């Protein structure tokens, strides 16, 4: 028996980078402020998976998929062996482990693709931007979560299995995945380290991570109108028409009293602005915000955007002290935290609390 290199450097690097990126993606999930981190981890994860596919075809011996013991009979025999606490010896992955590897990789691929779909449908960003509606984006969000939950179970089993296997084989499998070496008969086929491939993998992963993280969000301009922007943006942010249903805009412009101020619009201006507002109202579902407002706002719609159920739900955890803060002052001051408020997008990734504010509720 001697130390034989089984897991080459690229494979080990792949494995641990996968763990890291999965952990980062998990930790940054669900919180809009960390979307860039979540995407960056997710894209690295996808890149790692693609690398594994290639490496599984062209890589070192023990990394190749064709040498995985995948025959069903072998898997059944191995399961029986575990029950008897006496398993046949496999140099690389055992049959059950091999199936687990494929299942894990497959689910991780699905996780990445569903994530990109959420990004494209809900955020209108990324590879699938423009291909999916917010409704589809929302459906993929459920899929994404479901796959994640399946992975949580599978990964727990994976970790338990590593310990069981280590015990059954009297071999530290975690150490093996770190150093690459297992104590085996001299005749076992060894892998080569292949450090250059590993270096390339590391470099590639870091580049993707940093590139995605620092990429500014790519907005397509929403419908705009000079008269509307000039007139409606005089006293407050020009709230994009997609933020209220068309009926609300009609009601708002039908009266001169505009939240205790005088609208004071001449007829030509009023006609042009009303046309722009109703043509681009929430019913168009141009953004995730528009779609959600359209889905959840009752009729008759409130005239205040801050009274819509969607707005209230999104801001329910914002402490009162934040609204009173001198840099915010009012719930109507969207631009205080939403960097893309002027454009009308209200994307998750463009939201930042001003640095001088802490939100005690969150």
């Amino acid at each position, binding site marked *: 028996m001697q130390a034989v290199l089984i897991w080459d450097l690229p494979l080990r690097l792949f494995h641990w980078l996968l763990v890291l990126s999965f952990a980062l993606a998990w930790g940054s999930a669900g919180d809009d402020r960390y979307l860039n981190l979540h995407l960056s981890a997710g894209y690295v994860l996808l890149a790692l998976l693609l690398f594994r596919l290639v490496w599984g075809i062209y890589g070192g011996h023990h990394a190749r998929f064709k040498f995985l013991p995948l025959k069903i009979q072998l898997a059944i025999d191995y399961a029986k062996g575990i029950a008897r606490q006496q398993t046949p010896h496999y140099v690389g992955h055992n049959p059950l482990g091999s199936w687990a590897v494929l299942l894990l990789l497959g689910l991780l691929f699905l996780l990445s693709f569903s994530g990109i779909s959420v990004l494209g449908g809900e955020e209108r960003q990324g590879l699938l931007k423009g291909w999916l509606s917010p409704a589809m984006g929302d459906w993929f969000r459920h899929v994404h979560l479901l796959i994640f939950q399946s992975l949580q179970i599978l990964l727990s089993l994976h970790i338990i299995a590593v310990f069981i296997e280590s015990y059954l084989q009297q071999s530290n499998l975690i150490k093996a995945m770190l150093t690459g070496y297992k104590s085996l008969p001299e005749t076992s086929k060894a892998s080569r380290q292949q450090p250059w491939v590993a270096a390339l993998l590391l470099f590639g992963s870091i580049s993707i991570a940093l590139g995605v993280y620092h990429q500014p969000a790519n907005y397509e301009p929403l419908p705009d109108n000079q008269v509307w922007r000039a007139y409606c*943006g005089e*006293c*407050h*942010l020009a709230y994009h028409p997609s933020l209220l249903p068309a009926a609300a805009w009609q009601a708002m412009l039908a009266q001169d009293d505009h939240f*205790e*101020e*005088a609208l*004071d619009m001449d007829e030509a201006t009023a006609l042009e602005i009303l046309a722009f507002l109703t043509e681009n109202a929430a019913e168009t579902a141009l953004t995730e915000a528009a779609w959600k407002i359209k889905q959840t706002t009752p009729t008759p719609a409130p005239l205040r955007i801050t009274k819509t159920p969607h707005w209230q739900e999104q801001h329910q955890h914002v402490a009162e002290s934040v609204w009173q803060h001198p840099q*915010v*002052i*009012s719930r*109507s*001051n969207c631009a*205080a935290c939403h960097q893309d408020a002027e454009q009308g997008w209200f994307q998750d990734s463009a939201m930042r609390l001003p640095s001088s504010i802490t939100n005690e509720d969150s």
Partner: protein
Amino acid sequence: MKKIILTMGCLLGLSMSSIAAEDAVSSLLKSYQAEGASAASAEQGKQQWQQKQGDRSCVDCHGTDLTQAGKHVRTSKVIQAMAPSVNPKRLSDAKKIEKWFKRNCKWTYDRVCSAQEKANFLTFLKGQ
């Protein structure tokens, strides 16, 4: 030669823009006089600007230093500096001046401003 032409051109341009400002303001001042206002006073204008009527004054949104940008007291929207000396577009359009008098007097004082008040305001503002 080039320098002289350039300088003359600049002076002409500058004087034209101040003439434009003069045009809007002076034509409005004439119309206020026609409505019954007596001689306008910049000092009075300044007092009006700073005085609270009810619980609001012009200062609330425009600030006390008119060479600085102000902030809408309800929405926090940035309001460009009122002083024509730093913001040449101010007081250059008679229609705009009248529109904002109508709107802002209503919101700040809950009434229309008189011709005298408007004359005083303009005389004060054009010197800022």
